[in-house]
């Protein structure tokens, strides 16, 4: 296939000393390499693959409607209607979401609210149980649109108590603690999702998985689907593409089972603390991470709750900035055990109670502390809950890392 010749289009020398060029104090110039399109006009590389982007946008909207049809029926019809209000259109400003139409609460710009049903379950639990939804909130009367990162402000004070990135990093390094304060209460389901995503993140960042968990699941399933297409039985080597797919499958099954059972535990009991123990034993691991939701749990269910997705983004941005998980040094493969604090009478079957278990103190513990800002929750400080009836439960399955 003949390639387009790369040549420079007519030079556009911008005003050297005007506002278009930004010279750094050490006097630099900004250069770019252009690429010619089919008709000779300058085309950015991504445009070459997106010539049919208009058709793609139409198709995306068709896909959206197809997906709405597929998910309609039962509880998910509600989710379908919710999505329909926020189509995937380029540049389109999404209409106000259902939640905000019912009236804004203080400090909700940027974060959606979920209605909590009488049973205490959020809508996302009943209608979007397996999904993380990202709505496109455009509250009526908002000025600057919404932001993934701008914290909502309290109407009373007009300010947010949000540490800056340097402080987050310092606290994480000096005290081994990352604190995430959500501007409102969250549901039990959200708490489960926080733990679920933190587990996936830790496994990848601590080099126990060669790629992110969800990407691994996707590619493993594609591999399986591809092998099922073949009409004859094909004996393939265990290692393809440099990967041991048997180990991959085993690890994925372990993680999947762990996450499913955790979800069950969260449905039976409040889970104020979760431990991730990597390597060693449960009394002396090599690495120890704790997700502490005691303050979060204490305020759960009180009034309208925040949506999960923005909270997840806030959580992972803070974790990213704190940089407690990444390591330049190689981390060897280890077995990961999960311990969770649950009510002694919750009736969970899969997890094993460890009545005499104590959190190891000889290992440095990295704590991810999740809490709600009390002034933004619409009520005063919440009295700390009494966790005396709560015991540690150990997952019977350890997740064995694999790299390739």
């Amino acid at each position, binding site marked *: 296939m003949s390639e387009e010749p790369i040549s420079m289009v007519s030079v556009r020398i911008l005003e050297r000393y005007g506002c278009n060029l930004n010279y750094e104090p050490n006097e630099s110039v900004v250069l770019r390499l252009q690429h010619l399109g089919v008709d000779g006009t300058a085309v950015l590389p991504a445009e070459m693959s997106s010539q049919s982007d208009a058709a*793609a946008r139409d198709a995306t909207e068709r896909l959206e409607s197809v997906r709405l049809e597929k998910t309609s029926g039962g509880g998910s019809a509600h989710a379908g209607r919710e999505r329909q209000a926020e189509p995937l259109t380029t540049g389109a400003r999404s209409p106000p979401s259902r939640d905000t139409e019912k009236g804004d609460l203080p400090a909700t710009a940027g974060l959606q609210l979920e209605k909590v049903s009488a049973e205490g379950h959020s809508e996302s639990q009943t209608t979007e149980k397996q999904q993380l939804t990202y709505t496109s909130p455009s509250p009526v009367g908002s000025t600057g649109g919404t932001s993934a990162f701008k914290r909502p402000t309290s109407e009373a004070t007009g300010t947010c108590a949000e540490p800056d990135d340097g402080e987050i990093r310092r606290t994480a390094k000096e005290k081994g603690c990352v604190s995430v304060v959500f501007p409102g209460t969250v549901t039990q389901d959200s708490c489960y999702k926080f733990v679920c995503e933190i587990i996936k993140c830790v496994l990848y960042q601590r080099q126990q998985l060669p790629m*992110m968990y969800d990407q691994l699941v996707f590619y493993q399933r594609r591999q399986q689907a591809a092998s099922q297409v073949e009409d004859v039985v094909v004996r393939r080597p265990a290692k393809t593409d440099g990967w041991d797919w048997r180990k991959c499958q085993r690890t994925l099954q372990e993680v999947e089972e762990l996450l499913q059972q955790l979800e069950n535990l969260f449905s039976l009991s409040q889970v104020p603390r979760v431990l991730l123990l990597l390597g060693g034993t449960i009394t002396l691991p090599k690495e120890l991470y704790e997700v502490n939701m005691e303050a979060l749990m204490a305020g759960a269910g009180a009034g309208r709750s925040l949506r999960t997705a923005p909270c997840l983004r806030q959580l992972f941005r803070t974790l990213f900035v704190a940089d407690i998980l990444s390591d330049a040094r190689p981390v060897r493969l280890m077995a990961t055990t999960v311990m969770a604090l649950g009510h002694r009478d919750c009736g969970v079957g899969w997890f094993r109670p460890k009545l005499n278990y104590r959190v190891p103190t000889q290992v440095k513990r990295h704590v991810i502390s999740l809490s709600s800002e009390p002034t933004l929750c619409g009520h005063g400080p919440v009295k700390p809950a009494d966790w005396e009836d709560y015991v540690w439960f150990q997952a019977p399955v350890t997740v064995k890392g694999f790299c390739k």
Partner: protein
Amino acid sequence: MSSTLKGITLKGSAELVAEFFSFGINSILYQRGIYPPETFTRVTQYDMSLYLTVDPKLKTYLNSVVSQLKEWLFDCTVQKLVVVISCLETNEVLERWQFDIECDKSAKESSAPREKSIKSIQEEIRSVIRQITATVTFLPLLETACAFDLLVYTDKDLVVPEKWEESGPQMIIDSEEVRLRSFTTTIHKVNSMLSMCSRAVYVPVPLAPCPCFCFPPFSLPQSVLWVFQHSTCCK
């Protein structure tokens, strides 16, 4: 690669850094969904699974940039590389991945290799690329078709190569930044930073995979084109 077992030379350092940019740029394009995922192939580099484009035009473009960059790195005349992601329709800059490059120019005078192993450099690079991948956990989804641009900040008195032109910095108005890790070869140091438009808007992402698993969970790169191509699977 011009390096010894005991250390690294200027040429070796330039090659290592250029190689990082090649894989780093590919990772950004893959993770941010600028190109469909099936236009990437998985390779093993830095002891991890990374993605490289197989799109011939894109490969040619990236190879041109990286090879020129290698020369500038050797000459110690490059200061920054920036990957700009902008909305195709409005040209609004949505993300700016900025890699600041510091060069120890004394390495040009002395040919003695510096005492730092390639292995340790690659370990540092690995942590940076892992961070690039991890950004998908909190970056907003790019709802529109996007284009990318590569900007290189060089010394002002540099002779502009034939196929290059001067450009504006393509800054983001009202941006928010996060810093990534840095790595150093002791000759070149690369500091990474991500700026994103703080007016980011969420988009709903249906997560229930269709039976053929053609649609990924949320943490996979989101590409409008990719969605288009797989729409025919969902009957």
